[in-house]
């Protein structure tokens, strides 16, 4: 795995962005500048109790919690409306978490399907072996997860914060954090008279957070810590979706793919069913995309042509195409989560849980947003916005199992992105399964010889296998 300097990794991110021809999805301001002179707010700037930057799931959750506590909350969104800039495969597994905030939220929110079927598929170029999990127990309230379309969902969620009393301002890009002594006291919006004061600023501005870097809380990322996801929404008839994916009325499935679909690039693929469309995409580690000179949309095309994917997407009309960076390194890229007057939540805090079995971000975003909102409320009760007072945010993240999850799975991202797990093991599984199921008149062998034979043919040293088994155990087992 190529190790790159800060500058090189950033240049790579930008180059990959240019390669696939998208607008820079996560750094609205181009390259993050080296730490600049700290500016203070101009006199006469309007004051809020809490300013939340970014109206995604984390931001809206934080704004909702703070507004319910009676604080004067400003929610800033850079898009034309919340969700207009947001990309996600959009399987949302935090139903129970959101239920805590908004009881029976699914009755009013724009959800697509509740996920009762999870598939984990190992792929080679011709074969796929899948673990197919299905339960009707996920079809009962509060459900386990939903497929959602982010532009609709984020808009609805932000509206809940507005209904609770938060003031939402769209088309407002934040340019920098404002300081007084070593305390964050507001933000500067890229407009005339753009200074705003706040007791607490909560940065929820997404992956590769400009604000966290501007405040010196986050380091620059390495290209191997970030992945680029490209996603398409394919429109498909509701009946066709039900038949193709063996679904009843409104239940849905989520498939995660590992193996040859991303070819030599580290990454994976996903497919979720919406009401009358499919969300599907591939995720590729940025460093390995650059190393192999692959363009993400080529991978997406290869993915859609795979023999086990092609019949699922046949006849789908592309309705949306989008791309986004995903912070993948988990525990190792968590920023400093707070400083005087400021908290970082959601993807901005790299709270994106990517660990093979799991591909979760929105639930952690909402949980961290709630924790940040609660910390801001508690700080207001004591009128103390120092770093020491806001440190309770970390306690709340622990209490909500966010930090503990990331800590206990801290070895998983490295394992999941290793070349053997990415390509070799899926091939072994496929080759083994093929030997088990093929009937050609030869002797029917038992499973152990087949497994040993497969391993021997793969020319992999037993030491590596044991190493990987240890790694897998350490990542997922204990």
């Amino acid at each position, binding site marked *: 795995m190529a190790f790159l300097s800060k500058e090189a990794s950033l240049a790579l991110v930008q180059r990959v962005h240019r390669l696939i021809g998208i607008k820079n999805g996560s750094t609205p301001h181009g390259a993050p500048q080296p730490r600049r002179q700290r500016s203070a707010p101009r006199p006469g700037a309007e004051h809020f109790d809490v300013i939340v930057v970014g109206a995604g799931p984390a931001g809206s959750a934080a704004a909702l919690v703070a507004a319910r506590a009676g604080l004067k909350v400003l929610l800033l969104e850079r898009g034309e409306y919340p969700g207009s800039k947001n990309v996600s495969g959009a399987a949302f597994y935090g139903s129970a978490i959101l239920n805590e905030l908004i009881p029976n939220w699914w009755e009013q929110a724009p959800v697509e399907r509740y996920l009762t079927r999870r598939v984990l598929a190992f792929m080679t170029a011709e074969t796929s072996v899948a673990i197919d999990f299905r339960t009707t127990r996920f079809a009962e309230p509060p459900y386990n997860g939903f497929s959602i379309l982010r532009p609709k969902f984020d808009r609805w969620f932000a509206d809940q914060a507005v209904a609770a009393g938060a*003031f939402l*301002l769209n088309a*407002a890009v934040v340019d920098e954090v404002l300081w007084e002594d070593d305390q964050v006291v507001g933000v500067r919006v890229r*407009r005339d*008279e*753009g200074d705003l004061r706040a007791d607490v600023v909560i940065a929820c501005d997404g992956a590769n957070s400009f604000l966290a870097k501007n405040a010196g809380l986050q380091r620059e990322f390495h290209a191997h810590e970030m992945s680029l996801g490209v996603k398409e929404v394919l429109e498909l008839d509701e009946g066709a979706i039900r038949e193709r994916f063996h679904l009843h009325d409104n239940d849905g499935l989520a498939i995660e793919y590992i193996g040859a679909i991303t070819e030599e690039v580290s990454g994976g693929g996903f497919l979720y069913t919406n009401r009358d469309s499919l969300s599907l995409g591939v995720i590729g580690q940025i460093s390995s995309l650059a190393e192999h000179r692959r363009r993400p949309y080529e991978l997406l095309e290869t993915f859609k042509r795979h023999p086990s994917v092609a019949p699922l997407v046949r006849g789908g009309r592309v309705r949306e195409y989008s791309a986004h960076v995903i912070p993948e390194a988990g525990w190792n890229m968590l920023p400093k989560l707070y400083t005087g007057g400021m908290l970082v939540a959601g993807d901005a805090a790299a709270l994106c849980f990517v660990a093979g079995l799991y591909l979760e971000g929105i639930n952690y975003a909402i949980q961290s947003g709630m924790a940040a909102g609660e910390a801001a409320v508690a700080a207001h009760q004591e009128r103390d916005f120092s770093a020491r007072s806001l440190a309770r945010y970390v306690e709340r993240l622990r209490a909500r199992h966010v930090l503990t999850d990331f800590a206990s799975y801290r070895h998983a991202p490295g394992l999941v992105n290793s070349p053997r797990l990415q390509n070799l093991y899926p091939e072994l599984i496929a080759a083994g399964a093929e030997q088990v199921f093929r009937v050609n008149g030869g002797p029917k062998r038992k499973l152990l010889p087949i497994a040993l034979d497969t391993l021997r043919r793969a020319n992999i040293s037993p030491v590596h296998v044991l190493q990987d088994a240890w790694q897998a155990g350490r990542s997922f087992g204990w």
Partner: protein
Amino acid sequence: MRIAVCLKQVPDPATVEVDPLTAALDTRRLLYIASPADTAALEVALQLAGAEGHVSALCVGPPAADAVLRLALAAGATEARRLWTPFLPLQAPAQTALLLAAWLQRGEAPDLVLCGTRSSDQGSGQLPALLAEFLEWPVVCDVTQITLEGDLARVQRRLDRGAREELEVRLPAVLAVEAGIARLRHASLTGLMRAERAAIPVSELDDLGLEPADLAFPAATTRMVTPPRPRTRPIFTPDSTRPAHERITQIITAGVTRKSGKVLEGPPDQMAEVVVEFLRERGFV
């Protein structure tokens, strides 16, 4: 200087999707913006009014159209008002103009009414003329430039084929501007927040002193709008009697050949025969 600007909310063309089979619009995916010619009119109004001028933004539309008026307030309009009645037919330039005129005739009339020449969605271009008719004011459409001198407006107007016309109009008048002659300013944060917080007043038929029956205009109804038929374009095919290399040359030169002539010499009657033969060959005689 009191200026009223009429704004219309239209679908963002980037979000318009048409089903190729049924030609139906996918309305679920539509997002709405202010019509580009109207935002140009708003910017012109803000420039003409200056700091102490009074710009009021008007819009005929459902509650969602408040977004357009907030845009105007954020950019610096003094006040905004939405006019609405559920009795409005779908495409209704006459009814829209009637509502606007009814509002403008109440209270202090503006010195100038600005609007876009045509909206970017239906684009009938009827509103400015109808509005001027109801107000009994002069109207100039396709305006590209406005300068004010007292109660006189010097106006440049676009004609076909790049021609321009310069006119003088006595105020009050309705001036309809072209899209793209001015770009709406970027609102300040203060302006944006003020606009977000503002309550937009609404006037319905009662407030305007109108009855639903006043909205009946049986005289003209647009039934269908057909896009212009694309011009037929001849596809070049090389002469099949020619040898291959000549056909290839014809294709790569796209059939463009130099003009060529032939000079005849000889006695007049022979030359006349050659000419007649030439003309007959090509079917002229």
